[in-house]
């Protein structure tokens, strides 16, 4: 258990900047995810932390102690790899025991601790198998057990679920969260899957071109993104050009759009006449009496819902989900009642 503090981390590969000034604090016992598309620098950040690569600039401190000079073997992190990285010539037991043997733990204690952790991941009965005789999910559980058994200062997970099928990925999510909570271990997780990031994390850091675009709770980054990039990366979203009419409370504004006036949330400090983008999440919109006037442009029926596209004004399109029982013809007029809690103002990069 430890607190990790990363400041000003920078790394370039042959001149191409991979990370460009990453600052991140991971509180003791918390679960923080680096989320972003491939090439955003999330894996590079994790690999710097693990000691596999040396950054050009920046500091990494664990509980206030600088670990930049330490090799991976001295950093005491449990690393879980995307491709599992199990030792193919060692049995499940020996794979898990590897880190304890390296730490010269007594044989009897190794046996107890390995058995205990294999029990936690429900693989006690397979401990004599070689990794290649296991399924992908089982291999990933061995990898998790191997990283946990050394009781590391922190767990570093690099897209651990990316190679699993959807159902297994779901189960493994619960297992990882559960084990992390039980062990109360600090965890840094890397993924490009926004649902996974939000489901697992206390804090999500959305990364963009080698920097952290926004760090916040899953709710924060989903409902109150700081920029359009974050909004787009965290889920389905539509945007309307909007102009602030007046603040109506702390972090609350009345804005006007091509479809009419609505009330919404936004960052502090906006004033009348500011041009912004209004973020609308499809699940937070429903037909109502007052709100944004729109025309139904297209829809498809997916059983549990109807995914619709409506046109606002002349050229703006908004997505929303309607309940399956609503019958609306294409071209019909519809008024969208936006939940003021869920509608949020973003900087309008095109306008500024």
């Amino acid at each position, binding site marked *: 258990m430890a607190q990790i503090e990363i400041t000003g981390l920078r790394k370039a590969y042959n001149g191409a900047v991979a990370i460009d000034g990453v600052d991140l604090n991971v509180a003791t016992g918390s679960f923080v995810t680096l989320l972003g598309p491939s090439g955003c620098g999330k894996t590079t950040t994790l690999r710097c932390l693990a000691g*596999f690569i040396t950054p050009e600039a920046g500091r990494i401190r664990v509980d206030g102690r600088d670990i930049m000079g330490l*090799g991976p*073997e001295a950093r005491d992190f449990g690393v879980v790899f995307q491709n599992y*990285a199990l*030792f193919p010539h060692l049995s499940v037991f020996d794979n898990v025991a590897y*880190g304890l043997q*390296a730490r010269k733990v007594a044989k009897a204690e190794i046996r107890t601790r390995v058995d205990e952790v294999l029990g936690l991941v429900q693989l006690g009965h397979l401990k004599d198998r070689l990794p290649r005789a296991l399924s992908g999910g089982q291999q990933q559980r061995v990898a998790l057990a191997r990283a946990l058994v050394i009781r590391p200062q922190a767990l570093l997970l690099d897209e651990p679920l990316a190679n699993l099928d959807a159902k297994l990925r779901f189960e493994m999510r619960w297992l990882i969260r559960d084990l992390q909570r039980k062990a109360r271990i600090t965890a840094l997780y890397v993924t490009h899957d926004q649902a996974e990031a939000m489901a697992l994390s206390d804090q999500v850091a959305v990364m963009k071109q080698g920097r952290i675009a926004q760090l916040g709770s899953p709710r924060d980054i989903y409902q109150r993104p700081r920029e359009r990039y974050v909004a787009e990366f965290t889920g389905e979203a539509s945007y309307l050009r909007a102009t602030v009419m007046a603040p109506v409370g702390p972090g609350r504004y009345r804005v006007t759009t091509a479809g009419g006036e609505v009330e919404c949330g936004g960052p502090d400090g906006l004033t009348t006449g500011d041009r912004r983008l209004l973020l609308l999440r499809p699940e937070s919109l429903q037909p109502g009496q007052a709100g944004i006037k729109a025309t139904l442009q297209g829809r498809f029926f997916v059983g549990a819902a109807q995914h619709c596209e409506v046109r606002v004004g002349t050229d703006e399109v908004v997505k929303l989900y309607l309940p399956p029982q609503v019958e609306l013809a294409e071209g019909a007029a519809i008024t969208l009642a936006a939940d003021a809690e869920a509608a949020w103002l973003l900087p309008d990069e095109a306008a500024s």
Partner: protein
Amino acid sequence: MTPSPARRWRLAILGAPALFLLVVFFVLPYGEIVMMSFRTASSSAPYGDGLTLANYARMFADGHYLGILGETVLVGTSITAICLLISFPIALHLSSVGDRWHTLFYACVVSPLLVGVLVRNFGWMIILSFNGPINQILLALGLIERPVRLLFTVEVVVLALVHVFIPFMVLPITTALRNIPPSLYEASRSLGAGRFSTFWRVTLPLSFPGVQSGVILVFVLAISAYVTPVLLGGQFVVLMPTVIVQQLIAAFAWPFGAVLAMILTLSTLSCVLVFAFATRGLVRRAAIGRQP
């Protein structure tokens, strides 16, 4: 799924040239040697008409030949062991060297094979002769008082064969090392194992399939080497291939020569089988990426 008759014929035709070569140049000559080893000697033909076990009896009764066989296996084993010790670091380097220098290192490793066997051995003879550069240097450094005999020693034969067999050891080990995913090293280090421990517990065992192929290749080549022992060992280094050729060509004792060839082949084969059997567990465990 069994192939249709037409398809089977087509496959047979495709395989025919290879089969033809194998039968004419390998199976038939070998059969001939096996046959010959049971024939009586003859002064007018390669062998007489009668069948006999006397050639085998003579070979086993005479400690001389068994001694030479033992020596041959010993020399072969030494060459293999020295090759392995020299080649592993080279392979380790080759498997990690990045793009630019790769081709150059590769060329260096296979360079002994680029020179014909005679040229290579005459080169050694010049270097190692009484007035050759090695003796000159040793004299100049004051390490020796007069030129020493370097040629026609078993050490020189071993040296020359190690030199030319190194590529056969380096290449399979390099391939095996390249097959090890780099994440395994990272996993090992992150679990607290240092560089040395990682080498010992991950690199070495996982390179074993390559080590096994290299060892077998070099051992078989070393046991059957003829030109180098003859040229650099002369009469002082007598190994099985030399004795066999002497029997066939000089003594014209074809049946007895055939016996010696049979014994050498069987000994080599059993050494290889024992080695492969003893190490099969290691190889099977280290087989990376193969699903059951």
